[in-house]
């Protein structure tokens, strides 16, 4: 005889059951459906957002889903919530739910096309959503770009700290190398009247040659990474962490003392090449390449080196090549992110690449989840948002964020979404196939 009390659900189970019931109608919504719904929502915001916000007593549309209002003007919280429900939650909920049969049909058809076409369609939709959302204010454009740069940074650091399990602290250093090299490149070639003299090339060519500047920055960062990668053959753990931390400070002092790039004052007036579509494209490219890498057997060799190096080498894995690849690859993307960062802010100084940047990007990696592309994306976007939301607290936000990090470490030591594989093919699939038998019966 089983006890009766065991069958009584606890409050937690009851909440979970209620949520799952609420979520039930949304299970069969494919990614395409969500994108379409988001498009409708941002379109509505574009059309009726401002009048609605005014009616609700706000001077303008809440820029980051109300994140800024919470601490700044708590009195406005109810109106922001109402705004969110009317503009985002209701339209997304309704559209996603009722277009599901239609979007599933399209998704099912897309499966038969090559993955590239499916991916491009989804990305175009995603970009459209982002573009319309950002059209509301310049602040949104800035935050969106910073969030995407944070994604590249977090992902690349995850390659070393998550996938390979080393604790590397040199990422701001790689970022600085990329930022300075890319800045000098664009300033020398495309901008007149600065410390580097006249533009060497017609400035009109600038936006087209900008990728070259980023790649060059990435490559220089990768060369810098050699200084950390080579000691990693002989040492691991704490010692490597200290070496990489030293590297970060070396790079920082290097730029502080290099007068040609402005010393401690830094460089400014970078051309405005890192527009929203440019940053978006680079972010997609980074996610695609990094995800490709970590899902290949070559990339999983990083995991093997992390979990048991001796076993890896006894199974023919070239551990030196693996470590070298991981460090150089991660540094390359950090360099690219640095280049983008410099051209978004259009001003950099050595202080931007110090210990605070390190704390920020480490927090994103460990918050989002080790060994996980999805986790990195969530961590980067989430922490960028939280960081913006806490902006009114000024310097005190650096008390809140570390406390959050400590809590994460206690309750989920590997981060929110750790050790998962980001399967792009599965992402695009139609979602109505799960209860196949039931569907056939009704048809």
């Amino acid at each position: 005889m089983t006890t009766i009390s065991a069958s009584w659900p606890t409050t937690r189970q009851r909440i979970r059951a209620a949520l799952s019931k609420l979520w039930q109608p949304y299970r069969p919504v494919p990614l395409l459906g969500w994108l379409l719904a988001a498009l409708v929502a941002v379109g509505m915001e574009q059309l009726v957002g401002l009048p609605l916000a005014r009616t609700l007593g706000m001077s303008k549309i809440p820029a980051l889903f109300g994140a800024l209002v919470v601490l700044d003007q708590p009195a406005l919280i109810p109106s922001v919530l109402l705004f969110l429900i009317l503009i985002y939650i209701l339209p997304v909920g309704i559209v996603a739910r009722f277009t599901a049969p239609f979007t599933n049909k399209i998704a099912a058809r897309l499966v038969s096309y090559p993955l590239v076409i499916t991916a491009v369609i989804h990305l175009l939709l995603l970009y459209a959503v982002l573009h319309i959302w950002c059209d509301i204010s310049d602040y949104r454009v800035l935050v969106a770009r910073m969030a995407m740069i944070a994604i590249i940074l977090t992902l690349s650091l995850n390659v070393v700290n998550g996938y390979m399990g080393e604790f590397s602290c040199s990422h701001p250093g790689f970022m600085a190398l990329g930022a300075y090299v890319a800045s000098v490149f664009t300033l020398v070639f495309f901008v007149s009247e600065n410390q580097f003299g006249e533009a060497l090339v017609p400035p009109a060519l600038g936006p087209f040659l900008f990728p070259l500047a980023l790649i060059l920055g990435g490559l220089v960062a990768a060369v810098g990474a050699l200084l950390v990668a080579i000691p990693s053959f002989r040492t691991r753990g704490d010692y490597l962490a200290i070496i990489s931390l030293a590297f970060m400070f070396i790079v920082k002092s290097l730029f502080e003392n290099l007068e040609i790039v402005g010393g401690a004052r830094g460089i400014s007036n970078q051309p405005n090449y890192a527009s929203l579509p440019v940053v978006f494209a680079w972010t997609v490219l980074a996610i695609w390449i990094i995800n490709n890498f970590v899902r290949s057997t070559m990339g999983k060799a990083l995991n093997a080196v992390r979990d048991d190096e001796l076993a890896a080498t006894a199974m023919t894995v070239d551990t030196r090549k693996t470590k070298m690849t991981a460090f150089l690859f991660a540094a390359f993307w950090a360099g690219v992110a640095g280049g983008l960062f410099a051209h978004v802010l259009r001003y950099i100084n050595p202080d931007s690449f110090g210990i605070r940047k390190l704390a920020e990007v480490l927090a994103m990696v460990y918050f989002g989840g080790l060994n996980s592309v999805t986790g990195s994306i969530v961590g980067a976007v989430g922490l960028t948002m939280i960081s913006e939301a806490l902006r009114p607290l000024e310097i005190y936000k650096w008390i809140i964020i570390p406390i959050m990090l400590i809590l994460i470490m206690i309750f989920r030591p590997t981060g929110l979404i750790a050790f998962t594989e980001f399967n792009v093919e599965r992402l695009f699939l139609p979602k109505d196939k799960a209860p196949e038998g039931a569907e056939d019966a009704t048809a």
Partner: protein
Amino acid sequence: MPLLEVRKMTHYFGGLRAVNNYNLAVEREQVRGLIGPNGAGKTTIFNLITGVYHPTEGNILLEGEDITRLETNQIADRGLGRTFQNLRLWRYLSVLDHVKMARYSKLTYGLAGAFFGTAKRVNEEKATDALAMELLELVGIPHLADQIVTNLPYGAQRRVELARALATEPKVLFLDEPTAGMNPEELIQMMDIIRRVHREIGLAIFLIEHRMKVVMELCEIIQTLNFGEVIAEGTPEEIRNNPLVIEAYLGKEVVL
């Protein structure tokens, strides 16, 4: 010419002589055993031959080619596969990924393939998947392919290690106590698997064991090691009756 030959190998750890003047000649398709009391230097010999340590003196030849100074991964690639005494599996990788990982040096798609997901990479990964599944079938655990290894029972983990070692296409397979910690049922299954592997792939096997039943039934020739030196070498029958071996295991008879 023997398949694997070790000539006069000596190794010191600091001032301690762990292995002294060790000689070995493994012929094709031979099953050899290495026994000896705890601390005799059996695993050290495995580590020396597979390149984890480099011997102070002596040479190791695989098919007549000197591999003494090569790195572990190069030696593994040339055809010495191994398992470990204490399981050394990768905590967060699936069973299938374990076996695929051992194909690392055989993959030719390179970093470009890894980064950009070229057609060559897709095909090679597919072929590796198929090969890994075959090996998992050989060791009897194809149904566990998608499991994370830490969730598996001990016997299955041993099998994963064996399948992984086989994926390196070894010419000589080194098994370091393949039945350690197994119950009698698992032991018999493991011996069956070793026999099957030997029969179907036709490789030479060199194994360390503590259980006499396993060594005596599987091996054609057995070496006995004590304090880093071979004290006896011969067929199971000869070893069983060798007074030196008995002494090493049971101690000398003392007349009171």
